[in-house]
């Protein structure tokens, strides 16, 4: 990532606007990958960004907009490339999160499970949580805003240990 020399005064930023549907998410993630590579972001962080952004966008497509909508709503993705990592902001106009804390980072339990009885879902939020830090969700009016940091250097995390910073502003719609 560029140091204090060079002409860019502001850190590189990616801003994407796309439809909340699978195909558009896929195309946008490819754009993010290219954009981050061009900004000099390293392999490991770019790989983690693909995973975290895919899960966050899939959640919006599946849960915030969901199957009932006739047309997909919009997603806004903004990424700020900083020395410490990627600051991500994701906005949608879909349904509110269910009340209470955001889903945690617990993976579905696999050990001791018959292969025929393995879980096929429930990994999305846990993957996002294991990769992202400073995760915050906010409901304002008819919008969801999800913010998180994808750190340049991964911090070790004990299995089952929740990140420090997951105090979640409760999803109270403004009066």
């Amino acid at each position, binding site marked *: 990532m560029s140091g204090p020399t060079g002409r860019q005064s502001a850190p590189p930023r990616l801003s994407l606007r796309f439809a909340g549907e699978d195909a558009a998410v896929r195309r946008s993630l490819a754009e993010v990958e290219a954009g981050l590579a061009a900004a000099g972001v390293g392999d490991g962080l770019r790989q983690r960004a693909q*995973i975290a952004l895919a*899960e966050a966008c*899939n959640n919006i497509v599946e849960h915030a907009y969901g199957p009932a909508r006739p047309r997909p709503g919009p997603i806004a993705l903004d990424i700020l490339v900083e020395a410490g990592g990627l600051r991500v902001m994701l906005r949608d106009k879909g349904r509110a999160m269910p009340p209470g804390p955001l889903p945690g980072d617990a993976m579905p339990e696999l050990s001791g499970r018959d*292969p025929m009885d393995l879980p096929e879902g429930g990994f999305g939020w*846990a993957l996002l949580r294991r990769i992202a830090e400073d995760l915050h969700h906010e409901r304002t009016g008819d919008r969801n805003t999800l913010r998180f940091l994808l750190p340049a250097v991964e911090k070790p995390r004990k299995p089952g240990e929740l990140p420090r910073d997951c105090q979640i502003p409760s999803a109270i719609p403004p009066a």
Partner: protein
Amino acid sequence: MKMTFEARGAVGVLRVEEPRIDASVAIQFKDRFRDLAGSAEGDVILDLARVEFLDSSGLGAVVAARKLLGSGRQLALSGLTPTVDKVMTLTRMNTVFPIHADLAAALAAHAGSG
């Protein structure tokens, strides 16, 4: 979704010829898997060497594919690229599927191992 199947002795090799197994192709993946490997016999090696990305929907489809084989057959994975390996590690699915460095290693290890 491009996938090819080849019987190699007692083992079936299913190669995914696409760069991504994500939410937009997860259902197709499962259907293709059933068509190609469902009726065969023996263990299946799913070669992911060309797959650069797998999200949790794709992972769910791989789990569903494994179940299609039934409890008498195994699904092994080979050729995990870095992002796919990362997802397998974070979800611990790398302790559910036998994993081999590449297709040659998977074939050598699975021939005759039933």
